[in-house]
């Protein structure tokens, strides 16, 4: 049984999993402090005959400390997170040489358009197939997302990548797969009664395997 984050299969897993772990440690410390503290107080200060509570309205120094420490922690967390956010999703984050694949989402399937032999989308040798995303390993891929009808969401857990696909908008998202294998793409935004079945297979292949597949698939599509 899987108790942790999914297998790592893209370059995003480093920063995202690392950030997740860092936050887990910080919140874990806070969690232990509060819960153990509460249990301690519940036991130590329970009502006993003849005891009176300590009459105080507070302590300004304590207030300052327990306001400042969380505030500083949050600011630090924000700065680190923003650095990776800009890298992953920023307006200029998509690598210039990213390999383009068009993905059109509709109830309840994914239509992938491949650039064909010339490597460019929007040319005569493009072809479209359903529910199969083939990508070469070790190269940045940019998926150009469009939606036919309602909002869907492109999500591959092992790549940690997620991007809502919105009708009326052309959105680009990028990732770089690191481990060859077969993965699953799921729709991650409720899109109707078939939402739970709107999935595709993702094949991460070596460049040779990818080229061989591309040749065969292009041939089949032209028939």
């Amino acid at each position, binding site marked *: 049984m899987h108790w942790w984050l999914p297998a790592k299969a893209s370059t995003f897993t480093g920063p995202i999993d690392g950030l997740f772990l860092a936050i887990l440690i910080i919140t874990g410390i806070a969690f232990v402090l509060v819960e153990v503290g509460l249990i301690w107080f519940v036991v130590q200060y329970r009502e006993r005959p003849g*005891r009176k509570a300590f009459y105080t309205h507070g302590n300004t120094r304590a207030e300052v400390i327990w306001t400042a420490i969380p505030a500083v922690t949050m600011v630090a967390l924000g700065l680190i997170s923003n650095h990776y956010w800009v890298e992953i999703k920023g307006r200029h984050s998509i690598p210039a040489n990213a390999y383009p694949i068009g993905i059109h989402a509709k109830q309840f399937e994914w239509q992938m358009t491949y650039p064909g032999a010339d490597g460019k989308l929007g040319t005569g040798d493009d072809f479209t197939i359903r529910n199969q995303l083939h990508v070469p390993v070790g190269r940045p891929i940019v998926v150009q997302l469009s939606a036919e009808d309602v909002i869907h969401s492109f999500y591959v857990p092992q790549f940690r990548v997620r991007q809502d696909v919105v009708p009326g908008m052309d959105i680009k998202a990028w990732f770089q797969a690191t481990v060859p294998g077969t993965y699953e793409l799921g729709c991650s935004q409720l899109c109707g009664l078939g939402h*739970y079945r709107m999935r595709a297979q993702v094949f991460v292949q070596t460049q040779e395997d990818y080229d061989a597949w591309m040749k065969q698939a292009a041939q089949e599509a032209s028939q």
Partner: protein
Amino acid sequence: MTSVAATAHGAQAHHDDRSFVRKYIFSTDHKIIGIQFLFVSLFFLLIGGLLAMQMRWQLGFPGKPMPGGGILPETMAPGGVILPEYYIQLVTMHGTFMVFFAIMPLLVGVYANFLIPLKIGTHDMAFPRINMWSFWSFFAAGLVMLSSLFVPDGAARAGWTMYAPLSARHDYSGASLGQELWSLSIILVGLSSILGSLNYITTIINNRAPGMTWFRLPLSVWSLFITAILGLLALPVLSGAAIMLLFDQIIGTHFFDPAAGGQALLWQHLFWFFGHPEVYILILPAMGMVSDIIANGSRKPIFGYHSMVFAIVAIAFLGWIVWGHHMFVSGMNPTLGSSFMVSTLIIAVPSAVKTFNWMGTMWRGNLRFHVPMLHAVAFVAMFVIGGLSGIFMAATPVDMFIHDTYFIVAHLHYVLFGGSLFALFGAITYWYPKMFGRMMSEPWGKVHFWLTFIFYNCTFFPMHITGMAGEMRRLYDPNQYAFLQPLQPIRTFISISAFLLFATQLIFFVNFWWSLWKGKKAPQNPWEDNGLEWSLPSPAPHGNWEKVPTVYRGPYEFSSPQVAEDYLPQSKKLPSDREPARAPVAGH
């Protein structure tokens, strides 16, 4: 400053010859209105729970016929097997009923109405008739929403967040009248909230008893005051958006339909601009009441009262500028992702401050673990988990992974159930004597508390784990994904825990209803508390006081060296007390 309460002469305590209908049905008495909200909201809490039980059946035992499912029509569950389109109706209506018809009215409709005039020392609300309309529009909204479950093509099914264009077009969702009734009901809910807020704000500003300065108000009143301001400003945005959605659905506008020139993201911005202040509406009153109960249970003043007030104000203020954190991966400009992340991380700070202050209140106290105190301490323990899990989501890169997964579902249930609902169990028990003149059973209250606490954590904690593994929300059958199949044992465990959790609530419901007739008769001040309401008989009479009390001190003077008892009511005059600057109005 003349007291507006002087003009509310229709509500004097000594004069009550109203008919049964005017007394209990179309009542303008804030206490009766509060009780009306209580009965109706508890009914909707039950409905929300029943919807959840069906969801959990499908998730725990996918594709199997549900016990009792035979009563459902073929369009929902043929042979008792839940269909995908019915499942997403369950998801949608569970969220809708719980947020708008259970938690919000329980916190605000009940306690703002019941407590405010009592705790500030006045006879009734500033506008008693508008108050009555606030309840009846809520009741109408509830009937409309309930009816949507029974119409052809079924209920709304785009999630309680109702994203467009799925929600706007019948050919995308498969629902028709049900979606439209949802929109109409929400418009009425907004109206109810706005009418209520008008009363709460005006009454607190204008009708406080002599000596009840702003910084002598109990934190429950502060939180209800700030919540009312949030409601007044946020609910119109929701109602406006719901009107636009209804127009898209029935009169051919295209606000949210990109196929005809509209914008899908417009709905999200409008909804969440309301939606984020809404979640603070759903927690602040709970925090306020928990403060009152913890101070009482600890026999100590609240630690850092002024900080607590500033924290409430800070949370409310910051709550307006974080809505985009629901939309990090929505397709909105990523630069907004950065700005919303900053504001979201900052809003964690006042919540942390409050948590430490509650602990500071308990520190070196003389803790009494009556049933309300059990719930209030559990609130702190559970709310902390919900709040800390929120930090993961605030960090935008991490949110890219956990958005729309069960990690979010865990977070929202820890704050809304572990937080607000536990606080409500405590509050209902605490103010029950003042409402009904009887006590709820203490032993059964403790049994209910412990079983709820255990089954609640068994139900919702594992959702953090399935969320981390990548399990998406609102999936009829996660087993369609190979990577989610190994999690089925966890899903079944969660479902069984949920069934036990739901069954446990029977104890609370029986305790609540049975005690109305057979509970021990309540003394005037069973918890030995300081608030003004405890200076009245149990139950409090119509009009509250003949003569409005005078306030000499703050609400949390427990274990004061001035007196031998470990509590000191706000209106008790000691020889050393001076009269407040504002004299009581003559004949009042």
